[in-house]
């Protein structure tokens, strides 16, 4: 904790959990869809399930706008959040919010189903307080990361040696990066698999990690590698 965790963050109100945290959840989906230019999101179909307290208070907290803004790549301090519904429509993004309790989920949980051309996937997570999030599910695969550390997600084909390829690359080219937490999950043998690699925080690490993700993306059998920046 530092002084800017107390006098900060700068955010769009009204609620750190129901607004700022919701933007961050949306941003995880944005990174997984992996399209930076909002114009290229034209045709994106979203079905967003709001569970628990999210379902009951989303209008007053602007949770719907916040999630949508995050999915479009905005930050928790972007003034565009307030107009996110209109911005989405103007950019040809189709969205639907469904109030439906997800069994055994944290009270502030959202499940984002997205479809854009051949990209189809799901991100599910919870806003666990103070703008902090926990991501539970990516494309049907269980994950568990909080965003306290910079996290690299590697979507890949389940083949022998992929983990070794990724960690050797890290060891050789990024010797100061240390893995704080590692998780592998897959739906079926030989299908899509997902590595969740949480890294110890280091000064100036983010640029280094973006480069690392780009390098990992170039490895055999890797479909996509993204960096989720720490809070």
């Amino acid at each position: 904790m530092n002084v800017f965790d107390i006098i900060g963050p700068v955010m769009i109100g009204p609620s750190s959990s129901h607004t700022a945290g919701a933007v961050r959840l949306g941003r995880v989906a944005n990174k997984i869809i992996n399209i930076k230019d909002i114009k290229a999101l034209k045709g994106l179909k979203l079905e967003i399930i709001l569970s628990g307290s999210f379902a009951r208070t989303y209008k007053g907290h602007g949770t719907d706008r916040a999630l949508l803004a995050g999915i479009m790549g905005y930050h928790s301090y972007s003034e565009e959040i307030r107009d996110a519904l209109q911005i989405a429509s103007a950019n040809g993004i189709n969205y639907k919010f469904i109030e439906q309790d997800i069994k055994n989920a944290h009270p502030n949980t959202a499940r984002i189903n997205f479809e854009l051309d051949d990209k189809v996937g799901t991100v599910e997570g919870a806003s666990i307080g103070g703008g902090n999030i926990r991501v539970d599910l990516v494309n049907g695969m269980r994950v568990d990361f909080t965003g306290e550390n910079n996290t690299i997600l590697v979507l890949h084909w389940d083949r022998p040696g992929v983990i070794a390829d990724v960690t050797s690359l890290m060891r050789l080219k990024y010797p100061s990066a240390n893995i704080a937490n590692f998780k592998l999950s897959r739906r079926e043998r030989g299908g899509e698999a997902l590595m969740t690699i949480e890294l110890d925080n280091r000064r100036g690490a983010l640029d280094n990690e973006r480069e690392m993700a780009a390098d990992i993306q170039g490895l055999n059998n890797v479909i996509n590698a993204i960096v989720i920046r720490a809070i």
Partner: protein
Amino acid sequence: MLEYNLIKDLINAAETSHKKISEIVIEDQALSMELKPEELFNKMSGNFDVMCEAVIKGSDKDLKSMSGLTGGEAYQMQSYIANNNGGLSGNFVNNAVAAALAVASYNASMGKIVAAPTAGSCGILPGCLVSLYNFKRADKHDIIMSLFTAGAFGMVIANNASIAGAEGGCQAECGSASGMAAAALVELMNGTPEQCGHACAIAIANQLGLVCDPVAGLVEIPCIKRNVSGVMIAFSSADMALAGIKAKIPVDECIAAMQSVGSALPVALRETSGGGLADTPTGRKLKELVLLS
């Protein structure tokens, strides 16, 4: 390195080095964040600018919260001040009231604010500090520095109690913000570090047990007006401390008491809207209204 476990230690560290608390905090934070003190100052200056802008934008006549339950109170207060020669409490104090209303209702309308320490209590530090700035009662540089004192007090509170309404009730949000603001005000008025501690202790003691009972689960009723009472308690606590009045219970013990009171609060009074004002006949009716809209 400072530990931020006891306010007593912050006070001692400042007094032995003959510095203000904000000065030792900015130096310490620069070291631990591996940045220059100027970089931290500039970042804090940016945060203060966001506070000032929120006071202006939140005073808009037509401001409405997302739910439609609140909005425009700061404008009403400003008009009252203008038409009544400052009103009952006078120009300066009522402008601080208006500033707190402005920022807290701007938050409820999805405006840009600084969580200080939380979004629900975001009007208290601006209510105190932006009004001092607008009335030229303190130098901008010193005001920005005083936010480091407020932040350090907040870190100690977060380390020993809580700053989340869901954990400790409103005392943890508005109570903490008010205690932090009281300390900052004392420093700005050239009080001693020890007096900063007394001011914080008095402010926290005056909000001990305050429950978190938001109507319809939204950060509006009673949150917006509780930001105003947080400002008033911060001013009166700072003035008492500057007058040499001491808190009889030391500040670190007040924070410990806040923690034990918070744990003793039933869940219904910790942000779940199961009790308090949220569960009054009118509170329930307003909730229905929001759900139907």
